[in-house]
């Protein structure tokens, strides 16, 4: 297991290097970029040329890349030119990552809390109208563009329920400890700050939850259906075990294996949705930074955030694999 983990981590380093090289080359080849971001519409060809030289952007790409790598090793990934101009890309990530984690946590929690029981019930009543309705319903969840749903939620829910529809917290005095606003409030006892942050999370996390919900629902349903057909469930029945024991120990414990994996994978993939959701809700997380980064072609930020997103995604997948091994003795004991 340890060897496996190390191997995967080494692979991750490889992926990150390849990816950073590709991204870096891409950013350098593209027109515009840092120079035009810095000069804006007051730019003239000469000014641009001079600045290009000054920033060393006229050197061969591989040289620039090595320089970049060297700086990156010291934690310097460059400075934002569009998202938070002047801030170091790393700072932007560090500030925003907790926000996205908070949002993802709530989104995935919603998806699990609704998806798993619903999937179980649908499987139990396979073929019933309830089953069909929830299957089609979950498919609609997949068919709705996330950002459109976010807009609808923002328009309808926020005006009808008065929920805040932008930002992460109102401009209230709150002490920052961990960067997780909900936690910070609990730590410092500023309950209003926690509450305020929580309220801000409601709409975006619902919007973000739809796709993981649909996926978790369907996997749960399929897994439970599969397990219900298994011989060992029949064995358990032949032992005369009570229904709750069979459900817990024999059905769910097996059905949860793919579900747990899916949950992990969906958590890793949430960032895609977060780009759209955070943008709509003006939620200052990594996703929003990416969205703005794409819009304003903030290459240093894009570079770092994409690499970070990749690493997080790969690490989450690795954790999923490891946890799978932990919960599945067939793999654990190998």
């Amino acid at each position: 297991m340890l060897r496996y983990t190390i191997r995967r981590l080494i692979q991750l380093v490889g992926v990150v290097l390849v990816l950073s090289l590709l991204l870096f080359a891409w950013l350098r080849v593209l027109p515009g970029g840092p120079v035009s971001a810095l000069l804006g519409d007051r730019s003239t060809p000469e000014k641009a040329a001079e600045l290009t030289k000054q920033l060393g952007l006229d050197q061969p790409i591989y040289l620039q890349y090595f320089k970049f790598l060297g700086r990156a090793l010291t934690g310097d990934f460059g400075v934002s030119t569009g998202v938070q101009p002047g801030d170091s890309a790393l700072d932007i990530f560090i500030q925003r990552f907790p926000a996205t984690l908070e949002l993802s946590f709530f989104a995935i929690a919603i998806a699990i809390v609704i998806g798993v029981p619903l999937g179980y019930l649908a499987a139990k009543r396979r073929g019933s109208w309830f089953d069909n309705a929830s299957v089609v319903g979950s498919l609609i969840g997949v068919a709705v563009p996330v950002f459109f749903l976010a807009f609808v939620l923002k328009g309808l829910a926020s005006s009808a329920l008065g929920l805040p529809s932008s930002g992460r917290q109102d401009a209230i005095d709150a002490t920052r400890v961990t960067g997780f606003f909900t936690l910070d409030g609990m730590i410092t006892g500023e309950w209003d700050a926690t509450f305020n942050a929580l309220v801000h999370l409601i709409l975006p996390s619902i919007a973000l939850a739809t796709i993981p919900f649909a996926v978790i629902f369907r996997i749960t349903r399929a897994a439970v259906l599969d397990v219900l057909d298994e011989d060992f469930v029949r064995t358990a029945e032949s032992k005369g075990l009570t229904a709750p024991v069979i459900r817990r120990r024999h059905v769910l414990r097996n059905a949860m294996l793919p579900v747990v994996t899916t949950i992990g994978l969906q958590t890793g993939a949430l960032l895609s949705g977060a780009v759209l959701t955070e943008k709509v809700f003006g939620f200052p997380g990594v996703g929003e930074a990416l969205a703005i980064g794409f819009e304003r072609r903030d290459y240093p930020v894009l570079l770092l955030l994409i690499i970070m997103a990749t690493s997080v995604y790969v690490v989450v997948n690795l954790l999923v694999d490891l946890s799978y091994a932990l919960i599945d003795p067939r793999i654990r004991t190998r």
Partner: protein
Amino acid sequence: MALLEVRDLSVVFQRRGEEPFIAVDGVSFDVEPGQTVGLVGESGCGKSVTSLAIMGLLPKRGAKITGTVKYDGTDLLKLSDREMRDRRGRDLGMVFQDPLSSLNPVVPIGLQVSEVLERHRGMPRKEAMIEAKDLLDKVGIPDPNRRLKEYPHQLSGGMRQRALIAIALACRPKLLIADEPTTALDVTIQAQILSLMKELVQDLGTALVMITHDLGVVAGLCDEVNVLYGGKVVEKAMRHKLFAEPRHPYTHGLLASIPRLDAEPGEKLTPIKGSVADNIPWSQGCAFAPRCPNALDVCVQVTPAEEDQLGRLLRCHNPVVPGTPAAEEVPV
């Protein structure tokens, strides 16, 4: 009174938008306490469905069960789900064909054995585990202490089947149903398992319903043998009688098509022609008629009834006369 009395048991599968399918068609047999009864027949003849029907394990939806299954006088088919749960595992045990898929892959063997003790004998977990260990020991699993904590995939096929037997016998049921318990195993392992079962059944005085397609297994184990074809019992007799003088053309044909280890060199096999795909429905005559070398016109017109012939039940219009060699296959 027989321990188990199966009368006219029929199972009809009805799926939406499909023709109903009669998997078991009026099967009757008795099992006396301590007796071993065999159900033999080829794949798809309804052996497993019969056993599942007795255990009340067929799906509630889509399967229609008729007839009676009297266990110790109570009709199991009339019991509620709760009552049936109380009996399964306690009064009736079952061993399945595929030992790997029949064990829960993510639950340790020990718990899979002990849970049935906890359920039916109200033992606390600790005690049940100790008992489970003894059980594993009894079914011949080496180092049972260690195996308690292991998972099914860590055991070999034979050991898994032993564990399944331990589970089925944990509460000392009066009746054990074994559905092809050795089909998935190698001959040397099969021999181990069969002798183990024989031993246990004798020791505990358990009645055994042995389901198999292997006539050899039946020959060595069962007191009474039921031969199934297309969901109906076509011949039933005590084993010596059945093997010595098979009367139904199907039984006769089966015995003739099995290569025997003790056969003379150069002996020819006499197969039954065709396959079950050629069957006609029982409602229109004898299902076996199209494959039967003894078939008469009446066979495809009238469903043969079950007849008692000197302690042998037979469902045939034109049984084999004892002593005739098997008919040669007619080339198509």
